């Protein structure tokens, strides 16, 4: 049985593609046959973050419109066994995405024995985002500690609970909150919403907190998913998140300020 997981957020630029790449890579590293699909038709980027942009021949829309079959379009990752990328189209518009088309693609991946199908949603709540979540069993809701991102996440939760196949069948998409770009320093100084505050507002089970980290930019520069950087805090936090998703109990890390500042040491706190 394949498990379909959408990585979604509503708000743009919060880390969906970074997360999709890390998540799919982590699942494959742990031995699961994994496909990651870019639903951001017109603005494909997952190929760049995965470092396979020069190997794109066919894309999701080609498969949906019958111009290529799924095996021609899937790109096999060169570093990690069991990992496949299905890029989005850069030239076509999102109207080419149809529910039947997406269902056919997902069904053929299921037949191919994929354990996980990760859907990297575009921002917004339009067709691309709606279709990325429609067939999901699980949803990773990517949220930044920032007002507009939290509000948009709540909108997305409403859609997950009403506009998905599971919801239409009276079942529930499993929701997992992933907070990214977290700065313990700024939380400590009162300038950033704390993890606990976001949890209290959204009331969704927490699956991970990814710290703000320069290594994410470095990873995207070189086209290597950040989870492969075992020395970076973000890479380690993504690895913990994958383990939790697979059912392991792993304590949360990188939530506290690393070193006490001069003033705090002097005046307590």
């Amino acid at each position: 049985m394949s498990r379909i997981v959408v990585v979604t957020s509503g708000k743009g630029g919060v880390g969906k593609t970074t997360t999709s790449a890390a998540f799919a890579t982590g699942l494959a590293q742990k031995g699961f046959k994994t496909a990651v699909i870019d639903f951001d038709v017109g603005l494909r980027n997952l190929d760049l973050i995965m470092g396979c942009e020069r190997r794109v021949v066919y894309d999701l829309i080609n498969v949906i419109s019958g111009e290529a079959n799924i095996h021609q379009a899937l790109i096999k990752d060169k570093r990690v066994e069991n990992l496949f990328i299905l890029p989005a189209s850069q030239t076509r518009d999102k109207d080419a995405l149809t529910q039947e088309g997406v269902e056919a693609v997902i069904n053929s991946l299921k037949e191919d024995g994929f354990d996980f199908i990760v859907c990297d949603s575009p921002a917004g709540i339009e067709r691309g985002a709606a279709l990325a979540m429609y067939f999901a069993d699980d949803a990773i809701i990517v949220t930044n500690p920032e007002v507009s991102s939290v509000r948009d996440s709540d909108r997305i939760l409403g859609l997950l609970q009403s506009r998905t196949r599971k919801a239409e069948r009276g079942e529930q998409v499993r929701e997992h909150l992933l907070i990214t770009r977290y700065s313990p320093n700024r939380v400590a100084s009162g300038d950033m919403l704390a993890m606990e505050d976001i949890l209290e507002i959204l009331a969704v089970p927490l699956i991970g907190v990814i710290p703000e980290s320069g290594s994410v930019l470095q990873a995207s520069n070189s086209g290597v998913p950040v989870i492969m950087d075992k020395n970076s805090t973000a890479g380690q936090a993504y690895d913990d998140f994958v383990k939790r998703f697979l059912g392991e109990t792993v304590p949360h890390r990188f939530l506290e300020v690393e070193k006490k500042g001069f003033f705090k040491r002097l005046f307590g706190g």
Partner: protein
Amino acid sequence: MGLFDYFRSQKPKSAQVAKERLQILIAHERSAGREKGLDFLPQLRSDILEVIRRYVQVDDDQVNVQVEKGADYDVLELNITLPERTSAH
């Protein structure tokens, strides 16, 4: 609390303000979202008007559809004022 924190705590921190604003906003938007389930009301009203007119001539404003929100369930209230009885009938 350290001396430094004492001075800083005079003014609410921006994260605290953010949290409070979000709590109010999201509670509001969630209840609005639930009411969305009732966006069929205008259509229901015009359908009812159509059915009634098969039997009796009523004016547009004689049909009133309202939803009363309760704690556990909502009540759909339907009020139709029939035309005045004239001796001609």
